[in-house]
């Protein structure tokens, strides 16, 4: 699935965007299937806004976001659901877990949507990221680091062509970041997918094909 951005300008940041140069805002950008893209974005430049535009959560922009040549603005709610269940996966910056469900139940809500990953594999992944013992804890009671690891695993529990990540490791220590990167690489590769990671600072977590400054 190819991604095209055409003269994309977020309406709330329109003035800000015009004042400075960006590799993405008000430009035409082409990202081919399977690319690994890093978007470096200082605070307040619209990193989360961009990820939300790509995922279809927000539509308050001028220009176009096109997936395989189709404008995302034209997608109806059912079409968006279809994309989100099978083609686009996301790790939100604010995790967005169900606080009244346990970590295991949070993963279950996503896993049972497509049933593409066996429960035993989910257990293995939890163990790899060091949260196996938190399976029965309420998500609302987990630390941010633990919640972030649950959110990372949740994003991998579906088939996808693109994995969107918005500061996915902001609450993790170096060791946990490395474990998470390994797992993500493995699953992205298995899905023949691409990824778009947005973060504040430059990094080499993945073998990026493009690095863009927002």
């Amino acid at each position, binding site marked *: 699935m190819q991604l095209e951005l055409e003269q994309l300008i977020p309406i709330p940041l329109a003035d800000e965007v015009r004042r400075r140069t960006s590799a993405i805002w008000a430009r035409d950008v082409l990202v081919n299937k399977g690319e690994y893209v890093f978007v470096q974005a200082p605070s307040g430049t619209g990193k989360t806004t961009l990820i939300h535009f790509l995922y279809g959560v*927000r539509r308050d922009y001028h220009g176009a976001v096109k997936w395989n040549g189709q404008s995302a603005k034209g997608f109806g709610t059912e079409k968006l*659901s279809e994309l989100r269940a099978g083609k686009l996966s996301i790790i939100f910056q604010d995790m*967005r877990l169900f606080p*009244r469900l346990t970590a295991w139940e949070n993963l279950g809500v996503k896993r049972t949507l497509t049933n593409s990953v066996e429960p035993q594999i989910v257990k293995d992944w939890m163990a790899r990221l060091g949260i196996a013992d938190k399976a029965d804890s309420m998500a609302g009671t987990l630390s941010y680091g633990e919640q972030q690891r649950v959110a990372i695993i949740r994003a991998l529990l*579906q088939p996808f062509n693109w994995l969107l990540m918005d500061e996915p490791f902001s609450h993790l220590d170096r060791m946990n970041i490395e474990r998470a990167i390994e797992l993500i690489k493995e699953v992205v590769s298995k899905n023949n997918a691409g990824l778009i990671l947005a973060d504040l600072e430059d990094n080499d977590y993945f073998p990026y094909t493009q690095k863009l400054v927002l």
Partner: protein
Amino acid sequence: MSQQKLLLNKLLLHSGRSRLWLSLLSLAAGTTLLLVAVMVWWNFNELLSGKHDDDSLGSTFLTVSKRVTNETMGRPGATIFTSDEIEQVKAAPQVQGVGALLSNRFPAYAVMNAAIGFSTEMFLEAVPEKFMDKLPEDWAWQEGNREVPIIVSREFLNLYNYGFALSQGLPQLSESSIQSISFQLKIGNALQGEVFNARVAGFSDRISSVLVPEPFLKYGNDKYAPGTMTGPSRLIVKTKDPSDPRFVDYLQQHDYVTNAEQLRWNKLRSVVEIVSLATGLLALLLMGVSTLVFVLFIELTIAKAKAAIRLLLEIGYSPGYLVGFMLRKFIPLVVVALLDAMIIAVAIQCSAHYKLQQMKLHVAKFPGWPVWIALGISAMVLLWFVVFSIKRSISQEKIAA
């Protein structure tokens, strides 16, 4: 239940059991009241339209005759209705049908026992079948038949049993004992006559007379009283509402007389109709309120799960799937409430059937078609509201564009 359904239950349905039961109870109560109101209206309608022979409530039939005054006393034809007059009565307010009560112009005798020679003169009348309250199975006669069925006014039997028999020291007679007695009916004069076997086939509450099948009376009149006046002296009039002042005025203007008690009785009927209409309106209002309560319960449930619905949509659940999930949760509840109402309505109708039977009033054992139609319509309206409210509430949670 699958893990997914369990999780969705946990996420979406936490409005509290007591609220659920209260809203279901109000829904069932509202529907029951609506069905009962329709049932009351329908049952009264059935009773008042008098489809059953022994319905004393059902008489909207009046016997109308011309008043016998000092001036008309000496003129035998003065109380006969002409065909023009019959047409006028047909066109009178509230009149739905007019039947002529034909009377015999030939001599008729009932002979109880030929050996003893006990006989009595009698009069006979006939009326079109559709105006009769009692129609025995073998109520038919054609030329050549030797047996004549007779219907006697129940009033006559009462007069005998409670008046004549008591004063004369004679035995009182039950209806069945009278029906088992056969006697001979002799018609014609000493020179020319015929004898038929007669028996009482039934009793009438509606017509104070001795009735024989119409073909028999016409046969007797043609054969034994040819050329006499054949017009009716009494009419039986089917009316929608005989208590209508316009109808009463019409009778007075033409100096016609009828059984005044019947008119008073029909005032009660008007009252009953108004009461059942008011009950219906009240029930409709309650049904509306209970539907509103239930729909608000659904909307409250969805509003409480707002954040969860939003997140489910964000991680890939489709609005259609969530609407389907909610419908599968709420529609069975609606069906249960409607079934409860239906069972209660059937139980009430059954018990009304047996209770009223003891009072010689007939209502059906099971609710009639208007009740089922009311149930069907209320089910459709209710389901529409449920589906609409679920769809609307979930679409409000769709990702803001």
